[in-house]
């Protein structure tokens, strides 16, 4: 199925059509201007070719009007394309609210995935069709880049921080995953497959293997084992801030500055707790640098995100099965 589309990539995400429309329009504009210039150059070069050795050209007066026209028209077109491109880009980097979060850890030279249900995979990621999926990604060593051409998405994966990207697969099948940022000897084989399945098949696939504890459960376990809960208690804020409901809210620090609590902030608070001290607390928390793997940090973050203030809703649940749009075309 991959082999017979030699000139254009498959469209397998809701974004792909939009990117292609933008690209093809710009291509059309480019072909028009390219042919216009090439046509004029060739026409003039023939029409005004030198007829006698002493001939010279006939200079014309500078045409201010022409200069303005051929500055303003390209500028206007470029600004329109900018705005359109910006719209697509903002969409691609702002995950919708109902996106389900998967974790990605890259390292030389493999991709490690964890489903919210707990399943782990290496170099292959199974995802359900029609479900927005948000990837929270980090690297254990150098910079890599998550690239799925059929989805038209790409985002660098950095050591020491999280980046996110999202997609909603729109076609069942197996698609290339590439590492797009040069990362050393095996860069060109640091790839894999994204397998898009009908939601029912995905459920079956999940059920068919031992998923291990879910991300939230693993995080909860770590929270206990690493003794985070001796200070961060749900009922008392004397030693350390209560973590319920902090995600997405504003934190206020000793020096009066504030920040919205996101994944990168939680990560920093675990690995370098004194970097930003929450107002009203002492620098008591020890660093967990070197004591947690990248994946464990992600699980802790998953757990903390699940701690809603009313302790009912939790993030990262299994996507609802039996979604609409069952595509029968199997890869």
């Amino acid at each position: 199925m991959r082999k017979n589309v030699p000139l254009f990539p498959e469209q397998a995400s809701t974004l792909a059509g939009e990117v292609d429309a933008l690209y093809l329009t710009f291509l059309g504009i480019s072909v028009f201007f390219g042919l216009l210039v090439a046509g004029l150059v060739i026409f003039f070069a023939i029409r005004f070719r030198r007829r006698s050795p002493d001939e010279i050209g006939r200079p014309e007066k500078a045409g201010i009007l022409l200069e303005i026209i051929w500055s303003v028209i390209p500028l206007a077109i470029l600004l329109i394309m900018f705005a359109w491109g910006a719209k697509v880009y903002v969409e691609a980097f702002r995950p919708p609210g109902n996106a389900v979060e998967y974790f990605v850890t890259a390292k030389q030279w493999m991709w490690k995935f964890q489903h919210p249900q707990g399943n782990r995979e290496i170099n292959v990621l199974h995802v359900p069709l029609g479900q927005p999926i948000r990837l929270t990604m980090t690297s254990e060593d150098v910079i890599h880049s998550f690239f799925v051409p059929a989805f038209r998405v790409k985002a660098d994966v950095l050591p020491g921080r999280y980046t996110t990207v999202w997609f909603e697969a729109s076609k069942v099948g197996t698609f290339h995953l590439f590492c797009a940022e040069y990362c050393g000897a095996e860069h060109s084989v640091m790839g894999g497959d994204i397998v898009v399945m009908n939601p029912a098949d995905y459920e079956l696939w999940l059920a068919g293997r031992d998923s291990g504890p879910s991300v939230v459960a693993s995080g909860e376990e770590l929270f206990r084992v690493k003794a985070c809960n001796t200070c961060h208690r749900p009922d008392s804020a004397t030693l350390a801030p209560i973590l319920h409901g902090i995600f997405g809210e504003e934190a206020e620090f000793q020096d009066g500055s504030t920040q919205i609590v996101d994944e990168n902030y939680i990560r920093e608070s675990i690995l370098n707790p004194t970097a930003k001290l929450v107002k009203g607390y002492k620098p008591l928390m020890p660093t967990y640098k070197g004591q947690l793997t990248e994946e464990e940090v992600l699980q802790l973050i998953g757990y903390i995100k699940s701690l809603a203030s009313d302790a009912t809703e939790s993030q990262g649940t299994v996507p609802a099965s039996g979604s609409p749009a069952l595509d029968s075309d199997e890869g």
Partner: protein
Amino acid sequence: MSDTVTTPARRRNYLNADYGIKSWLLTQDHKRIAILYLVSITFFFVLGGVMAALIRVELATPLGDMVEPDTYNRLFTAHGVLMVFLFLIPSIPAVLGNFLIPLMIGAKDLAFPKLNLGSWYVYNLGAVLMVVALLRGGTDTGWTFYTPYSSTFADSEVILTALGAFVVGFSSIMTGLNFIVTIHRMRAPGLTWFRLPLFVWAHYGTSLIQILGTPVVAIAILLVAAERLLHIGIFDPALGGDPVLFQHLFWFYSHPAVYIMILPSMGVISELITAFSRKRIFGYKFVAFSSLAIAVLGFLVWGHHLFVSSQSIYAGLIFSVLSMLVAVPSAVKTFNWTATLYQGSISWQTPMIYALGFIGLFVIGGLTGTMLATLGIDMHVHDTYFVVAHFHYIMVGGAIMAYLGGLHFWWPKITGRMYSVFWSRISAGLIFFGFNLTFFPQFLLGYMGMPRRYHAYPEEFQILNVLSSAGATILGVGYLLPLIYFTWSMRYGERASDNPWGAYGLEWETSSPPPTFNFDEPPVVTTEAYDYLAMRDKRVA
């Protein structure tokens, strides 16, 4: 003065003034220094070309079956580093600019002849460092040296190569400084700013970038070395650094540096188009100021290399819109060149074939550049072969076409000899065709999703890769031909007259090759640039 009377054969000129090896290695004559540079950069062009050939052979099949992955990575790194730092950046400025700027402004030499010679030695020192690095196994970081791979992980000659780039940077600064002072202080009487050839304007813009941008990349390189040697955390997050900071520093220089490579070629094209249309350029001031606009705006767009590097969405928006703006002066130049042809007296000599080819390839390179500046497109094609194709259209299709066009144009002035018209046309044709066959398929590959810097790739990309490798073969032959007929012409070529093309410009008013101090009498300028009418009237009179 006349261009028909042949020059006396044994006239004293800068070439036959002295033959000793010392007279070359210690020369302070800008024309001889230009030749020294020509020899050096040609050597590295050939070396870089050999690397490219190996890369293309490897990519003819999907499997990485010819060299080891690690070797492949060292090959493309060496290719990029040699071509960018040792060939393209010095190419037009250090060879043609060095030779022509004093001639074009009616000066005896550059403002600082010793600095000029010094720059060649500094260049060679940097080149030696890079060659030693190559002999010790090379570097595997890519010419972009991204951290933390380069600073902590790579196990290759990163420091030597980077140090080489650092040192070569100084030769570039020295040349830029020399040009700026020369253009300000040494113009012939009557040669006002707006009578300057556009080649000189373009080099003025280039020199500004060279002296303002190069120090920044030099600092970035030093910081990488500091992290590698002293383990100071600057870029590696494991040491408390920020890996993306390097990308900002690197592109703050290297985006303007892409204009160091293309602005001089735009200057060459303006000269070629006017000379072979025998007509004043359309919109002189617009073309002149667009060089400055590019030099200035070029400093504000570096973030378009970081659209998917975790840069904030807002930064992405700003860098995207600024990149659109920087494309406008390039478009303006293109339209002005095209309009110059209108009602010209167009002669299809070899340099003009290069110039017209340049326009076509540069348009493709520029348009695909604006596509890359479009956020929604870049997130798909960033770091794919689409980018590779784009910058080769600009740097090879643009800059090298202009460099070769310029060499063919000024060769009679430089050597006093003509080359074979027949073979030069064949080679221009081969280069144009071979180039397109090599790089056009790469746009398609990139949009299909083939990432760059891949040693092996999925089978469905093979057909286009084979086409590209086939094109590279033709391109290689195209480049080899000038090497042969230029060398041949130095001995056997027909002697050239002072002004074989009947072109306007002070460089054509002195003999071919020029005397050591360029002009027997200091020239005085009384006409506007490219004023062919006045030139004809003067000759008739």
